[in-house]
């Protein structure tokens, strides 16, 4: 369809002021936080479920791809319009619709920032547990699509464990309700299927979330190591001891350096690794538990273990973790995050192998990761403007994914597959597995309208 006519038709749905189609705007909606780029045909800012439904019906009728987008913070190219089409930017649908403290639920629109809800919940002493590093700007629609994680997901589970229901516009434009405020909905668990489907099965227009009372007490500790392997071993030892901390996060030497230059979190520059441990729960017994954890750290060669004395100290330590990715771009202009997961006990050996990949390609790799989940985040640092280096980065990234898969792990902990890791899907799935998933996609979206060309690689017949 000609762009002019498309814009005219769509303007009737959302109003002229909510359509962008200039060359500049197409450029501006062609990237996210990944390395991929493509141009959409136009960008819309829907204001209601009804508008989204009408837009999708139009796309369905005209066979035009439609891609939902929040803040565009995703790291696997999930929002890149690889086949052109229409971008739905949800910045206008960003309200909190309901905070239901008694039932411990909140209902929100997809464009709401995660932290914006958390700030409101704090007034009631409540919290929404998932905490992606980008939470100050990541939207609930994006969290839903990518099944986002975050440090605290070790104890509390990822996004899918906190989304209980959703209003969803299906690829033919019909609006359905999946799940809801109650637990244990009968029928197929479509909520579970849709969370993490990266916008390929439908578009969420309203989300029902689980919210929880804030923990009575929290304790944040920092263990400092002269070896990265020892930090990795500590993680396994803590879990093996039957303890489930809220977070277990490791930052390696390179990351420490970058973080200290950027936010001054108080990490020692001569350490090989730091382990950031947080426990939360009841006040009673917390000191004892902390002591047990510190003892395990020391047994595993931590040279020093300290705990945050004040809320300010705690915030400071977390600022270091949350700012790690960005801080690394002080060292080189760009980075690729390899979001692989391995069984926890394999962490030390896989880390060593990652470093071998670094040497092999002559690329700098920093490590900052959700160690408790075995979720590695090797960051390959480079300069996108150097084409040869960029080529090596893609090869090294793929190789690291292979290492994770071979170690019995998987190729995405929380960032999704998107555009980036489609071919790596074969590292963990057989053609039959992929074909089964494709059947699901076909059942929902036979015309391949919703975020086409993502997640599932082509299976050779």
């Amino acid at each position, binding site marked *: 369809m000609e762009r002019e006519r498309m814009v005219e038709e769509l303007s009737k749905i959302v109003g002229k002021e909510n359509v962008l189609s200039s060359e500049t705007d197409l450029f501006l*909606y062609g990237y996210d936080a990944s390395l991929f780029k493509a141009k959409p045909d136009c960008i819309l800012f829907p204001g209601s479920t009804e508008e989204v439904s009408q837009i999708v019906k139009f796309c369905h009728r005209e066979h035009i791809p439609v891609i939902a987008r929040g803040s565009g*913070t995703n790291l696997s190219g999930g929002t890149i319009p690889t086949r052109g089409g229409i971008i739905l930017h949800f910045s206008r649908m*960003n309200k909190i619709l309901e905070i239901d403290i008694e039932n411990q639920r909140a209902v929100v629109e997809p464009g709401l920032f995660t932290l914006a809800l958390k700030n409101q919940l704090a007034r009631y002493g409540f919290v929404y547990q998932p905490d992606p590093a980008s939470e*100050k*700007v990541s939207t609930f629609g994006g969290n839903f699509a990518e099944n986002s994680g975050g440090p605290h997901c070790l104890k509390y589970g990822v996004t899918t464990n906190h989304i209980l229901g959703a209003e969803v516009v299906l690829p033919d434009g019909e609006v359905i309700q999946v799940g809801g405020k109650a637990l244990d909905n009968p029928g197929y668990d479509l909520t579970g299927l849709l969370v993490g489907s990266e916008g390929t099965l439908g578009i969420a227009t309203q989300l029902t979330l689980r919210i929880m009372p804030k923990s009575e007490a929290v304790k944040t500790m920092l263990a400092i190591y002269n070896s990265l392997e020892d930090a990795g071993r500590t993680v396994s030892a803590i879990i093996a001891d039957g303890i489930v901390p809220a977070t277990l996060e490791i930052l390696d030497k390179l990351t420490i350096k970058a973080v200290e230059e950027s936010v001054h979190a108080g990490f020692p520059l001569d350490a090989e690794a730091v382990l950031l441990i947080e426990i939360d729960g009841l006040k009673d017994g917390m000191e004892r538990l902390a002591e047990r954890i510190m003892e395990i750290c020391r047994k595993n060669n931590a040279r020093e273990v300290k705990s945050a004395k004040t809320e300010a100290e705690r915030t400071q330590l977390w600022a270091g973790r949350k*700012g790690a990715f*960005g801080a690394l771009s002080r060292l080189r*202009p*760009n980075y690729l995050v390899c979001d692989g997961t391995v069984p926890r006990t394999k962490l030390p050996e896989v880390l060593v192998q990652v470093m071998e990949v670094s040497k092999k390609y002559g690329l700098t790799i920093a490590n900052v990761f959700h160690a408790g989940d075995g979720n590695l985040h090797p960051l390959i640092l480079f*300069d996108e403007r150097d084409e040869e280096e960029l080529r090596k980065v893609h090869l090294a990234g793929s190789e690291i994914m292979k290492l994770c898969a071979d170690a019995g792990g998987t190729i995405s902990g929380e960032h999704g597959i998107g555009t980036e890791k489609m071919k790596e899907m074969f590292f963990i799935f057989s053609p039959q597995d992929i074909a089964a998933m494709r059947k699901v996609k076909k059942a929902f979206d036979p015309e391949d309208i919703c975020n086409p060309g993502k997640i599932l690689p082509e299976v050779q017949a």
Partner: protein
Amino acid sequence: MKTEQLKTLFYDEVAKCNHCGFCLAHCPVYTVTGREWATPRGKNVLVKAIIEGKIDWTPEIEETLFRCTGCKLCTQTCFPAVETNQAVLAGRECLVDRKQYPKVVDRVVEALETHFNISNEPNANRTLWMEKLEDIPDHRFQKEKARVIYFVGCVAAFYPMAHKIPQTFVQILHKADVDFTILGGEEWCCGFPLIQAGMKEKMQKLVEHNQEKVKEIGAETVVFACPSCFHTWKEKYQTNAELLHSTQFIERLIGEGKITFQNGADRAVTYHDPCDLGRNSKVFDAPRNILKRIPGLNLVELEGNRQLSVCCGGGGDLEMIDPALSAAIAQRKIEEIQRTGAGEVVTSCQQCIRTISGYARKHKIKLKVRDITEVVLEAMGSPL
């Protein structure tokens, strides 16, 4: 500036932007528009694309680059600290070179070239604010020699809404026995609007004139109540004189015992950090220290305070270029102020006052908006 120069000066800077999008949480222009073009990330990407020849200087790029308040909250909260505003200003210089910029800018340039002020009135009118003052000394605060120069600034001198600032500040200085002068009709615009307009090469004449005046008067110190004049002098001027903002100077006078507070008032106020004073010139404590010394005054901080203060909407020539956008940002600012529960906001910038109180007045919102000099004079007791 030519595109090639843009590449030499800013390619590495904008290449540091990883499109992480964290700036979307902070940028006041994005907060009210919800459009990617408004984001610092988008601006970095566009400047980079221009440099790489992937996109031309489109009308939308002009619109985008001229819609930045220069508040620099993006750089403050950006982990690699990308200097987006610097790239934006350089981009504006390129646009000016191509004669592709908002026409309203020409009016200001013409005013500056003809009258050396932004309001296009004869420069002698710079002292009209004085007419409301009674019992002032014969020299009318204009002396040939003085230890201190009070650089009033165009907005405070020409816009009646801001006249209270020079009116109160000269009284404070006079009561504190400071040997000071203003430059009157010999004060020329500091050049700030030209930097924002992408025409910084045109400011040299203004800079040289003002620098010369400081020499003639033999001043040791130049004091500014306008954070943007203050910041511009600190960045672009070469002078041996000490440069201080009014809050720093008042704090000093309190320390020397030359200012004492007689009048207290039990009330809660909040303080808005002007971008050019706080984040951009690192003056955070002086205004707070002053407010804390005033008996009975209870300072309630805004959610975004000090380094994280959110722009009022009046920065970077935005009020001139897109008044509606500026007002939308002001509305957010007022909502943030109202959430503190204080019925009064104190700040140290005439532009912030104009933007905030202008919006409040237009929308009949009950809110007291005052410059810190007014609060200080009131607490000092009887006027001149």
